[in-house]
């Protein structure tokens, strides 16, 4: 089947698009919230899909009220009164068209049905039964549009004993084994300092939708995907599961060391006594070790027999780490990184957010940060996708050319253009609490 035959071709703003993007012409009804869902559909918008984000004031995404907030000059302290100023929300929904819709109102259901008729994909990450409870389970969606794609990503998935259980990023990492695997050997697991699965789960949402689109284009049939936040976590546990299965051995934490791809030294070393300034250094082979020793100025300890070979260094990592750490202390992190990299040693500053945004020249070179506009807050920067494409560079502004929508900002454009509703219709619907 020719792909253009089966995709929606009229775009919301009614203008020919100048950009050429992979998912141009794909329309997605986006019912996601929180990071775990909203980030996934944002990636799809970055590849050029048209995202219609539906939300309702009766149960807004809690991230619309989550700190920190944009500073609005002259109106600094009003963020508590507006749902449009939260940093997380305004980042997760960049490039999407925003529509308010009451899914419990009969007229809201009617509008939803008409939107589905004109869509390619429906995505949500509500509790497993929510959309079905509203009257729009998979069978119903399919009856509205036979080749619709529906991907839902509740915490634990729809089928299975835990269909009613819920998960946030840390829950998923805990159940999946990822938290257990991070940290020092002689301490409890540290896990990750953020919600890893709130980032990786959305990658799988984006992947699932694009794979489903390909499937639909091949078969002409609809696709239902029962995804979850917890499920992908097992794929990130490396060799632990087959190792246990084949040998009965359990995973043992090793802090920052590298037991599998052998390297020593391999760790983070302090650069300042009173500040959190660190550099990561790894020597995978003799050449890197010899280069490190040269940059260190050939200290006597480095020629001791216990550091003579990689295997010897692996055996004596406590002393090795202490010696390397004593040498890095007091040195400028970035100068040290450059000096070590100059001679081929794997070294990198442990960058915090200010380092990454204010100092990292490589991210800037890749145009990783993009400034967007917004109706209520001053222009702000968001992250793009990391891939640099030779032919279809991702569009961080999606199909709106705009940052994040304020609540219900695009009701008129979307419902007017797609469903033919007039301004009077839309005002009446607002009065009836439908939109």
């Amino acid at each position, binding site marked *: 089947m020719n*792909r253009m035959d089966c995709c929606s071709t009229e775009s919301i703003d009614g203008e020919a698009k100048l950009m050429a993007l*992979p998912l141009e012409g794909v329309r997605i009804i986006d019912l996601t919230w929180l*990071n775990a869902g909203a980030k996934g559909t944002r990636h799809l918008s970055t*590849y050029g899909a048209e995202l219609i984000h539906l939300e309702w004031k009766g149960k807004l995404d809690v991230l619309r009220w989550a700190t920190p907030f*944009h500073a609005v000059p002259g109106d600094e302290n009003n963020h508590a009164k507006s749902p449009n100023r939260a*940093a997380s929300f*305004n980042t997760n929904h960049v490039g999407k068209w925003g529509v308010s819709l009451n899914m419990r109102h009969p007229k809201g259901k009617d509008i939803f049905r008409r939107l589905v008729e004109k869509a390619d994909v429906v995505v949500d990450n509500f509790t497993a039964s929510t959309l079905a409870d509203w009257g729009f389970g998979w069978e119903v969606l399919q009856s509205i549009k036979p080749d619709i794609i529906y991907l839902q990503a509740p915490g634990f998935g*729809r089928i299975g004993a835990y269909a009613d259980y*819920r*998960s946030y990023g*840390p*829950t998923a990492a*805990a159940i999946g084994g*990822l*938290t257990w*695997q991070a940290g020092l050997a002689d301490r409890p*697991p540290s*896990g*990750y*300092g953020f919600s*890893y699965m709130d980032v*990786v789960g959305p990658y*799988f949402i984006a992947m699932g939708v694009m794979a*489903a689109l*390909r499937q639909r284009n*091949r*078969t002409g049939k*609809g696709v*239902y995907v*029962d995804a979850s936040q917890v499920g992908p976590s*097992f794929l*990130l546990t*490396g*060799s632990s599961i087959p190792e246990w*299965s*084949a*040998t009965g051995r359990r995973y043992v*934490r090793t*802090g*920052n060391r*590298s037991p599998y*791809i052998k390297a020593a030294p391999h*760790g*983070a070393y302090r650069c300042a006594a009173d500040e*959190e300034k660190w550099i*990561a250094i790894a020597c995978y082979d003799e050449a890197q070790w010899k280069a490190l020793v040269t940059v260190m100025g050939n200290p006597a300890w480095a020629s001791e027999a216990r550091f003579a070979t990689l295997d010897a260094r692996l055996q004596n990592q406590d002393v090795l780490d202490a010696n390397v750490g004593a040498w890095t202390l007091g040195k400028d992190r970035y100068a040290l990184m450059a000096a070590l*990299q100059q001679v081929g040693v*794997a*070294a*990198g500053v*442990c960058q915090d*957010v200010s380092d990454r945004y204010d100092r990292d020249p490589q991210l800037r*070179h890749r145009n*990783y940060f993009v400034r967007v506009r917004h109706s209520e807050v001053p222009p702000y920067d968001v*992250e793009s*996708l*990391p*891939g640099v494409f030779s*032919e*279809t560079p991702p569009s961080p502004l999606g199909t709106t050319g705009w940052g994040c929508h304020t609540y219900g900002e695009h009701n008129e454009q979307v419902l007017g253009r797609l469903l033919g509703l007039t301004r009077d219709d839309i005002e009446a619907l607002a009065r009836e609490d439908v939109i």
Partner: protein
Amino acid sequence: MNATTGKSDKRNAAPLALEGIKVVEWCDHRGEFCGRMLSSMGAEVVKIEPPQGHASRGIGPFNDEFGGADSSIYWWSYNIGKKSVVLDVAQTDGLARLRQLIGAADILIESGGPGGLERAGLAWEDLHREFPRLIVLSVSDFGIDGPWSGYTGGDLIALATGGIMMVSGYPPGADGRYDTPPIAPQMHQSAHLIGCLGSMDVLAALAWRDRSGRGQRIDLSLHAVVNNCTENNLAWYMIGKRVVPRKPQMPEMRARDGTFVQVLLGLFPGEWERVVELLDEAGMAEDLKDPRYSDPAWRGLPEQNRHVDDVVRRFIATQDAEALFHAAQKKGVVWGPIREPQQSIDDPHFSTRDNFVAVRHEELDRDVVYPGAPWVSEQLGWRTGPRAPRVGEHTDAVFSTWVDKASA
């Protein structure tokens, strides 16, 4: 375990989205997870190995009962579902044969770094001219151009420069000083991230090729993908000037049976009250029923926060982690046990969802369990297996189907 529990026939037969797509994986360990994902979605992934075997076969852990090039469990995990073709690319003939495979492929995954393709005699511009439909995914440490592109890296350096380390670790001591370093989560996470984003980028590039007939090159670096992966940390800094401090995933809480427990103390409205109810049913809510604690701002003040943690810690110490998981979830309290990865294998929920799959290893005369499908679908399959290939196991078969038959 019975890895087939709960699988319906329809799901076993679910078609794969990348059926018919050919991938040449000519890369080091950094690109292997990406190939594994594409294989699971149905692509035919051919791994190029030198005659002595790929360097990844030397990465641990190893299975002691089966020696040699096929005993790396790392190799098994990351190359499951792939085929192996041996080529000595340093020889003219080997390079010519690699070019034949690339010409027959839809996707090339390579990790030669800046100038790597050119040095190999396979410059992107030439490949693009000769094979306009070819999609090339270039995997590197810092990217193929830019001020740091000549730098060397690896997993640790990516987790450092990408920001994950500076927010992950143990809490500071009472004096506010950290006595432990930033922590790099283990198990090759930067390769997982480049595998996820690489798969997404490849799917997007395939969608573009379906419309335009044109392939393209995607330059993806470990450094950039890790930077994409610290949740909202960058947004909070760019918009709110907040620098997130280094911290563990959870306050340390340990159940009666010794298992650590992931607690969360009320993100959504109503959740805090359910936590208090859960504690109160065991008679262990202490003073947390005091209505002042219902205010998240007050509850979040350092002294109150410590007190809440202490009360919850005392409660958890009286519970068994798995029983607490179910009791809490049934109450709408989103807690969970900190399991070791293999501890979910026999959990019926996950076997119903094909999260673990037994794969035949005929050389061991047994099955080995691998992590399986990230989703369940009757229309969109996910393949786990067959076992990773032996060195050159498919050289003849691949040339015969990709090259000889195609030109016959």
